[in-house]
């Protein structure tokens, strides 16, 4: 099997080595290797069907990989899971579910609660504080189905924040949200980075990549390029990922 043998690297928040994922016999992503340094904020970009979501889900073990190894903070990803939070696409759940906003955020406390742990006032306050960080404190007792798309996205991020994870992975956090929500989310994500935490997000709006992210991973079923935004996010490279479409918005 090709690909470098991973060495435990505690300074790397997430290290993917030779990861191949297939649906049936069709490979979706092939022998992907990528490193996400601690404290960095990476955009995973590429055209539709490039395998961005698939790569991240497989890295977390949510879908099976054919081959490859994934380490987080130097440990096998399953062992490092308590340090990782994942924000799925909004469409992944049924928002008619009988839950209030605060109930969903408190699901992020499960590792600390377990089956029998009591939801202490301290823990309740923590969950509430995460909502407040995203400007959603006033919505705590609303039914989740009554929220707008942007508000639902903020609830999902608040649930991830409640986990107090060192690595936060987001699948299209800005899809279909309004400008106010996008600003609230990006402020929180930059806040996480400032605390030394690591952020990885599947991202679609190429025009905001340089402003939001310090690193990029360009993907189209294989890794096209990986590195610091300033050096990697160049027209020629992006054009390769997107199949040589004209991309005048990107610096040459």
């Amino acid at each position, binding site marked *: 099997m090709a690909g470098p043998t991973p060495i435990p690297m505690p300074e790397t928040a997430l290290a993917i080595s030779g990861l191949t994922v297939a649906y049936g016999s069709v490979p979706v992503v092939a022998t992907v290797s990528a490193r996400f340094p601690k404290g960095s904020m990476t955009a995973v970009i590429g055209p539709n069907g490039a395998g961005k979501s698939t790569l991240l*889900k497989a890295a*977390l*073990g*949510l879908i099976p990989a054919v081959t490859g190894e994934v380490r987080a903070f130097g440990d096998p990803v399953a062992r490092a*899971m*308590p340090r*990782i*939070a*994942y924000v*799925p696409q909004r469409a*992944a*759940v*049924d928002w008619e*579910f*009988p*839950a*209030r906003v605060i*109930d*969903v955020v408190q*699901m*992020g406390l*499960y*590792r600390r*609660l377990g*089956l*029998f742990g009591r939801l202490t006032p301290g823990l309740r306050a923590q969950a509430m504080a995460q909502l407040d960080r995203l400007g959603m404190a006033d919505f705590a007792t609303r*039914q989740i189905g009554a929220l707008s798309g942007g508000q639902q996205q903020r609830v999902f991020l608040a*649930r991830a924040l409640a*986990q107090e994870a060192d690595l936060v992975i987001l699948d299209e956090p800005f899809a279909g949200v309004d400008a106010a929500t996008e600003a609230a989310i990006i402020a929180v994500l930059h806040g996480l980075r400032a605390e030394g935490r690591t952020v990885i997000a599947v991202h679609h709006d190429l025009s905001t990549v340089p402003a939001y992210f310090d690193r990029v991973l360009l993907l189209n079923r294989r890794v096209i390029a990986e590195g610091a935004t300033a050096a990697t996010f160049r027209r020629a490279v992006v054009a390769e990922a997107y199949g040589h479409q004209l991309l005048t918005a990107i610096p040459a």
Partner: protein
Amino acid sequence: MLDTVLNALILNAGYNAALVGIGAALLGLAAGCIGAFVTLRRRALTSDAMAHATLPGIALAFLVMAAAGGDGRNLAGLMLGAGLSAALGLIWLDRLSRTRLPEDAAIGATLSTFYGAGILLLTVIQNLALGRPAGLDSVLLGSTAGMLRGDAIILALGAAVTLCLLFILRRPLIMTAFDPGHARLMGVNTALMDRALLLLTLACVLLGLHVVGLILIVALLILPALAARLWSDRMETVALLAGAIGALAGYLGAALSVALPDLPTGPAIVMITFTLFAASALVAPGKGLLAQAAARARLRRALPTGPN
């Protein structure tokens, strides 16, 4: 007749009626609470297939016990047979679902095959003249006639154990129903939770065999949950309300069935459950039809009057 119904309602219709009323209420309580989780995890049809898949096992257990010279209608024996048969049905369903067959088709295929096999075996039993039809027919639609004190105790214990388990597992069960992917990342064994929920549902089916019968138990799982959902937006409250609605329906249905001896208990309980659901759909605050009509009317009045 009205007197008989009223008598049955206040448990004056005799020892047996009281026993059946309490037993059916306990069953309704367990089925309502568990059914709230079953519907939210979208396992309603699966639970129906599981209930129907108990029939061949019941018939075979009857045959084995009768052939061994015992009482073919021994409840524990029938439950064992039903449980094994339902497990087989679930395994078969799991296999079918792994093919490209859509899930609803796999469920339909499993349900009809097992039920058909069960009816075939029941016919064999009748032709062998081993059992009076009344002996086994009650497992199809339920009956108040045959309930013994021991059966009621089994119902009470079964309901208590399943509800305790449900209470303990409520957090991971809710997380699995809402967002299984996130639940797994949070350390919840979602496959185990799904199996636990199926086991709890199976327990309801087995406990309900003689009260509601296997054909209609699905209604006691689903309808209280649907009704409760109209009254609350919180999972815990929905489950508790569903349990209360199920208990009320079980009690009223059993009383009705005692008063009208030709009416099997299952249909009586189901019709009462549906009535409670329909009433909820009408008058529930917020989501009820009346409340929504009123809200629309208020909105129309508040709007400035346009050209039409």
